């Protein structure tokens, strides 16, 4: 591996750079904050001839994802990106992309959903997409966003997988913050994630009908097939991440635990908030507190065994949701994690922390208060409330 100098890039620009190196054929997207600078930069690469691609300027996100779907079916390597309302508008087509097993890669700069309209970060946009059948990554830095996009094409286009992938990156916090990013060389990217025409399906020499109608006698099997493919992609995702580690020195795992082995209290999270939690854990550890954290890098398929391995020794768990699930038993991540515990026959006390909606800042003190809350449970052995809205004026 050659020694390379880092570039100073925002999350969005790091992604655009990866897309250029990945030699994507068709890009179709629609402007929406905070995703827009990705497609602006890609437009520039295309205009300068640095990326030979067809950039389709569409009239909506619905058309953007539709065009990416059919371009992928035509054998092209495709990219799109969106946020918030745009992602919600794509919702219908997301299910179809996965059921038709088309390797579309999309970056979501996660943003709150309306109303009220708000351009800042939370996970309100992505949680309604949980059941769309896409592989879903969450990243914590611009570097990780860059790395995951490169991995994403390798995974999506793997014939054993053939599924669309969303790389989730917290809007504004990561999309617009500049960090040093160590890029791979163009040839390293090309050999790690090579494009492959054999995925082409719309071919006059081999006419196939894609996406027709079926009666109840075939529907269940079809949906199960793509659902099973998502489940079965987990070891391949893990393997690609390890191989990427060999190439770049950076690998992320399916979950990223810190100090979990002997921790009494553990916080479970996804996305950029994990960085703040990691710093808080280090700070509290210096004070001798037995705390730990685990960040999920992969959300779908859910890395059940890997997560359980990290949290099994805890005596109290706090699960952080950055989206509401009104009227549900609890927040989306809480529901998944506690189901994982139940299936593993573990009964660890758990509480749900709702934080950081619509870009509300989550500080080290907020994380400390969550650990303090878990400590109370450890002491009393009792859970007073299952849900806390941290930072809410009440």
């Amino acid at each position, binding site marked *: 591996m050659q020694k390379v100098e880092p570039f100073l890039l925002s999350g969005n620009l790091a992604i655009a750079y990866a897309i250029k190196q990945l030699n994507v054929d068709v890009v179709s997207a629609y402007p929406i904050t905070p995703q827009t600078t990705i497609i602006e930069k890609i437009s520039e690469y295309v205009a300068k001839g640095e990326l030979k691609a067809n950039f389709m300027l*569409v009239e909506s996100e619905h058309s953007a994802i539709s*065009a990416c779907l*059919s371009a992928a079916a035509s054998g092209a390597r495709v990219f799109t990106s969106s946020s918030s309302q745009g992602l919600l508008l794509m919702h219908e087509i997301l299910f179809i992309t996965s059921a038709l097993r088309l390797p579309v890669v999309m970056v979501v700069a996660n943003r709150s959903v309306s109303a009220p309209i708000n351009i800042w970060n939370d996970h309100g946009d992505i949680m309604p997409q949980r059941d769309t059948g896409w592989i879903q990554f969450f990243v914590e830095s611009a570097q990780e966003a860059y790395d995951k996009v490169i991995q994403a094409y390798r995974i999506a286009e793997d014939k054993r997988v053939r599924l669309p992938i969303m790389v989730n990156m917290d809007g504004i916090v990561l999309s617009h913050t500049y960090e040093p990013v160590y890029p791979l060389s163009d040839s390293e990217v090309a050999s790690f994630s090579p494009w492959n025409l054999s995925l082409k399906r719309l071919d006059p020499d081999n006419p196939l009908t894609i*996406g*027709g109608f079926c009666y109840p006698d075939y529907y269940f099997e079809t949906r199960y097939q793509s659902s099973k493919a998502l489940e079965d992609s987990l070891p391949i995702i893990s393997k690609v991440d390890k191989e990427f580690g060999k190439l770049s020195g950076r690998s992320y795992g399916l979950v990223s635990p810190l100090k979990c082995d002997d921790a009494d209290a553990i916080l479970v999270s996804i996305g950029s908030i994990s960085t703040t939690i990691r710093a808080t854990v280090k700070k509290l550890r210096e004070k001798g507190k037995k705390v730990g954290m685990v960040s999920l890098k992969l959300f779908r398929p859910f890395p059940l065994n890997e997560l359980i391995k990290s949290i099994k020794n805890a005596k109290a768990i706090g699960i952080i949701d950055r989206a509401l699930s009104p009227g549900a038993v609890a927040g989306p991540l809480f529901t998944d994690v506690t189901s994982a515990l139940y299936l593993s026959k573990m009964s660890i006390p758990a509480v749900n922390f709702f934080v950081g909606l619509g870009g509300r800042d989550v500080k080290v003190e907020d994380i400390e208060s969550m650990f303090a809350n878990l400590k109370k449970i450890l002491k009393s052995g009792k859970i007073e409330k299952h849900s806390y809205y941290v930072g809410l004026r009440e």
Partner: protein
Amino acid sequence: MPFKNLKEIIVRQDFFSPGHGLCAGCGAAQIARIVMKIAGKNSIMINATGCLEVSTTTYPWTAWKVPYIHVAFENAAAVASGIRAAYDALIMKKKLDKDVNVVVLAGDGGTADIGLQALSGAFERGDRIVYICYDNEAYMNTGIQRSGATPYDAWTTTSPAGQKTLKKDLMGIAIAHRVKYAATATISYLLDAANKVEKALSISGPSFIHWLQPCTIGWRYDPKLTVKLSRLAVKTGLWPLYEHYDGFNKLTVQVPRRTPVLEYLKLQGRFRHIMDNQEELAKIQSYADELATKFGLGPVTE
């Protein structure tokens, strides 16, 4: 070279297979077959959700002998654009060498209503696709609900007292996007229709064909009358056959003597409620007269 006689079309290979589940006498099946005969093997067919889609792709079989894709209801034009973009990019990058025709067949609901936005986008971008709307003047697949293309006074299940507005002018919408080629067609004037498809395929940008399709179930008529009704639509002046090329409209089928609209309406159960209503019949006749003036059709002769 334009088609000069029926035989030239008949000898073309069929890429639409029998055994599909469309109704006996279905006009959409006729359109699909003719369009594919003209477009040929090197074509990709895109459907919006609708009768044609569900009845020709009922798993595990398909009626299509060319590559076919259906994604959803409102995005047929965007799906077509994506295929165009992919082929253009792959050819540009020398990953592929053979080009294809990208042909959409979408109903009036998927075109005039829910799919209008995606269609507008494709027109505006200038994507090289052939978009054909098979217009049966209502949402037939869901059971005859009114669409933006339902004609004045027509009964549907959601306009039980008759539609009270005029059909959307889809040709006007296409032309307003400055598409290089737009045309109306219908099956009874087969050579005219075939030549329009051929011309649309040769255009270097988007082209649009608005194809009137009598629907036996939705229009409430004996299945054997599909072609006859298609002919009467033209002869009454309610469906002028014209094309728009490079900024100009041209009538392609002359109607020197028009048939009264009643001859067309009385064969269709969807107009039964106005058969004795002279006032309403006069309104439809005057609408036909307006079209006749606009397109230069002849006078009504009993």
